[in-house]
């Protein structure tokens, strides 16, 4: 499924006010995403002060070209389409809120997403910031 915004009733029902609390919660959310992408290898790297760099690299299916712009947008997710999908989600996906990467981008200097899907010759790296405008 592609990434799309959840309808407002789903956002109200499952939105969580718990923001990321520390580097460990960032790592946990990123590992969940990697597992949802069916990764068989997940590499976590972190700087000594746990804040400068937190990186999780996986060999999952990657993020497709149509979805790359929406990766850090709040309440946007590829895991469910609407509230009722939650009934069937058990066992198939760990993430569904569309909040982890949006919170990470808000709370950090930048989030760099490097991804490649099967069939692409080269990967694409995108940098997300908190600003409202696109830097050129």
């Amino acid at each position, binding site marked *: 499924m592609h990434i799309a915004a959840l309808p407002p009733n789903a956002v109200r029902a499952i939105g969580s006010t718990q923001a990321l609390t520390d580097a460990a919660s*960032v790592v946990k959310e990123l590992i969940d995403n990697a597992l949802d992408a069916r990764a068989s290898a997940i590499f976590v790297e972190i700087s000594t002060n746990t804040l400068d*760099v937190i990186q999780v690299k996986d060999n999952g299916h990657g993020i497709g070209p149509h979805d790359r*712009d929406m990766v850090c947008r709040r309440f946007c997710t590829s895991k469910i389409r609407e509230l009722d999908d939650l009934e069937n989600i058990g066992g198939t996906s760990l993430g569904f809120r569309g909040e982890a990467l949006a919170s*990470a981008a808000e709370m950090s*200097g930048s989030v760099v*997403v490097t991804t490649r899907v099967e069939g692409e010759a080269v990967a694409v*790296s995108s940098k*997300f910031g*908190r600003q409202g405008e696109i830097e050129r």
Partner: protein
Amino acid sequence: MINLQILIWVTSQERASHPVGTSIRVVDFLKNLPVRRQTALKSTAATLSKIKRTLKAYAIARPATRFSLKVLKAKNDKDNWVYAPKAGACVSDAAIKVVGKEVVGQCEWMVRSPNDPQASACSQTPDGSLGVDSAERSSDYIIQALIPRPQCGTHYMSRRSLDYLSDDCTQISQSSVMVPIISP
């Protein structure tokens, strides 16, 4: 109440060298939350060990998945951790890596499901799943647990031992000490 909407826009996009998959790199976490940042900087050791424990829990929940933790530019590698399973590794392989062979040797598998509330012993199958017969497979859920045998000596259970329930490959519980009631 002020409702502040912060738009996250792509600031730049470029080609990169990377295998099929994804890397997410968070840079300068807590940059704009100075108080939280100061608090976090004071407890880096606790955070690093929390991350290591999280990875161990994931290894037990997904024993066929490779996990590694590396602290960049560290003075030593005491906070690093690697779980590199062979093909077809199962939960006891992960448990051996996490809590050690001695502890796992004192444990046995219990499997419970709604159709079969009695505990049943089971053996590991080559693909990593526990051998469960077809009656249990049709249940809504199966709980598998590695629990110390009643007759094991308590000196095998130390504070390092971690207790996990693996439910459909999601880590759901973790406590720092295994305390089953062991009748003498």
